[in-house]
């Protein structure tokens, strides 16, 4: 009996040591997976699962509540027909043309303005520490706050126009926010005001990462400042352009609250973006199938823009 006990005692430490170590190392190997599992599952269900569900719903005739009988692409046929109804503009036509105008101007002006501000701030000026947060601060505001503030500022009866009239410049006229043809540009103004500071910060970080030696070498070779930026700095900032573009593109496409807060849809719905269209049709008009179809089209549009861009950018980098 005692021998058995002894062997047991002898064996235990050795036996325990090995499986113990392997359990621990196995646990260590698996730990990242375990930690990631909940968020992975959540992403799979709540993002990709619901994308599939939305695609499914867009082929049903869901109205107020989801219905699960597939009835064909009727929602898409309606959207397709609306795409070409420009006079008088259908809500869908207004939404997609606005998306084009807003998306292009918003991204382009933000990039240009952000780069310009960053270059100016990068001139080793005094008070940069104060200036930088001033430009960056609007990004800390929610779209709703930006929208309401600009709504008051741009309102001809309350804001800029009224103030200038009181100061004596009575011929001043700026009523874009009340004008069906220009209201979308006020959304651009408010959006640019909010995001360009953030883009500036991104470019500034990029500029600081550029090796000073290259710049000095170029200066010694007699490059002008313009050439320096045109030929060296901006090409080196290409990864920043990529990040900034992606940030801006998704902000542009999901802009919903800005339109609502700034224009409440604009005169006759003239400021709608596809996201407004989607919400209106799904939740206010009980046309869930049409709303879903519009969401699917938005997704496909984003994919069509972002994927080729990402593909070309990310493939080139290893070279």
């Amino acid at each position, binding site marked *: 009996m005692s021998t058995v006990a002894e062997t047991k005692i002898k064996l235990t430490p050795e036996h325990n040591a090995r499986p113990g170590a392997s359990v621990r190392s196995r646990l260590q190997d698996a730990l990242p997976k375990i930690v990631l599992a909940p968020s992975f599952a959540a992403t799979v269900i709540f993002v990709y699962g619901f994308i599939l569900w939305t695609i499914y719903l867009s082929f049903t005739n869901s*109205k*107020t*509540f989801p219905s699960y009988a597939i009835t064909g692409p009727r929602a898409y046929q309606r959207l397709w027909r609306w795409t070409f109804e420009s006079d008088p503009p259908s*809500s869908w036509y207004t939404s997609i043309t606005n998306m084009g105008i807003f998306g292009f101007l918003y991204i382009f002006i933000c990039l240009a303005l952000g780069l310009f501000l960053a270059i100016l701030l990068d001139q080793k000026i005094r008070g940069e520490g104060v200036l930088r947060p001033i430009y960056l601060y609007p990004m800390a505001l929610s779209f709703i706050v930006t929208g309401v503030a600009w709504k008051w500022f741009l309102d001809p009866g309350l804001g800029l126009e009224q103030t200038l009239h009181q100061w004596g410049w009575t011929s001043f006229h700026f009523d874009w926010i*009340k004008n069906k043809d220009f209201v979308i540009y006020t959304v651009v103004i408010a959006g640019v005001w909010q995001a360009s500071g953030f883009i500036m910060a991104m470019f500034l970080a990029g500029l600081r990462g550029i090796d000073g030696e290259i710049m000095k070498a170029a200066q010694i070779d007699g490059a002008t400042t313009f050439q320096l930026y045109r030929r060296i700095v901006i090409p080196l900032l290409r990864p920043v352009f990529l990040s900034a573009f992606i940030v801006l593109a998704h902000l542009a496409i999901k802009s919903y609250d800005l339109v609502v807060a700034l224009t409440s849809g604009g005169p*006759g*719905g003239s400021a709608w973006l596809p996201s407004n269209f989607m919400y209106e049709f799904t*939740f*206010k008009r009980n046309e869930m199938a049409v709303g879903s179809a519009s969401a699917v089209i938005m997704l496909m549009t984003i994919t069509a823009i972002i994927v080729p861009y990402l593909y070309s950018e990310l493939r080139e980098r290893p070279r």
Partner: protein
Amino acid sequence: MLRKLLIGTALASGFAFAAHAEDVKEVQMLHWWTSGGEAAALNVLKEDLSKEGFAWKDVPVAGGGGDAAMTALKAMVAAGNYPTASQMLGYTVLDYAAAGVMGDLTETAKKEGWDKSVPAALQKFSVYDGKWVAAPVNVHSVNWLWINKAVMDKIGGTEPKTFDDFVALLDKAKAAGVIPLALGGQNWQEATMFDSVVLSTGGPEFYKKAFNDLDEESLKSDTMKKSFDNLAKLVTFVDPNFSGRDWNLATAMVIKGDALVQVMGDWAKGEFNAAKKTPGTDFLCYRFPGTDGSVIYNSDMFGMFNVPDDRKAAQVALATATLSKSFQSAFNVVKGSVPARTDVPDTDFDACGKKGMADLKAANDGGTLFGSLAQGYGAPPAVANAYKDVVSKFVHGQIKTSDEAVTELVKAIDDAK
């Protein structure tokens, strides 16, 4: 049977954690009456219920407005987590009833005699398939003019009886240098005004055919074209800055005397009351010219959900209290609307309220009580919103002529059906 079982299971799981004995004495209420006057009006109901020993619990809604509340309700119902009752409008009640999630208050209705006292037009929305599923709280009517009396006296105007009178009156105001018509350029306000214009232009029969029955012949008739022309005439009298303005700011323009008149539902009276103005001396309420004798209504309802048995008692108490004469009077005096039953004494109401109650009774008896299309009582939301789109695009110039407007209206309503 299977359906009932499924609903039962959904309910049981939804409320498994909440099914304590104390919950029986609680009313869970989803609503968006949070602003001053409305909240005060609702407090009357809360007190009535607490006297009977029922606690009141608001279901929180992020975002405040009716749309946010409806989105929240949709999510709650989809999860099987029903509130005792929810504030609801028109066709929404019927949609939910068709989905089989509404309760049944027929017994209470019989006992309280709702069948006789609630106008038949309202019962179209509160009774589904022979069962009472909602308790109407009030009746608003939208074909009103709200006029600042001081401005009216200054320009020497009198009550307009026809549409042409009305245009003449607006002309007078324009000549006197006040903004003739206070309008908020949001689609529902424009469409609400257009409801009245159509009733005035085409008469009660036409309104019913076009906006309640959605008869295509009427929708594309010359009368409808004329209505759009009349609307265009009215729009020439608004100030250039009207687009996007909230309705209560438009009312404030009339209260302050910056503008002569607003065409708005009787909830505008709440704003006058809040500004301590008296009907008859500070402001005037007339029916929209040419619509006397008819009432275009909308109504707030408390939709009653199919709650488990242990919460039914609270629901019945809520419904009974909602339609009790004392609450109907007290609530509607504050809210500016008129009671949802026609047998409530009008002693506590002001002049406009008394007129509103008399008009409602007369319209109910004479068959001229019609649902407002703009407010979602004329047709389901898809149609109502398509209609609002067309009216708004016409007002703001995307649709340029009345011919085009009529074509678009028929097309939009067809699309949405």
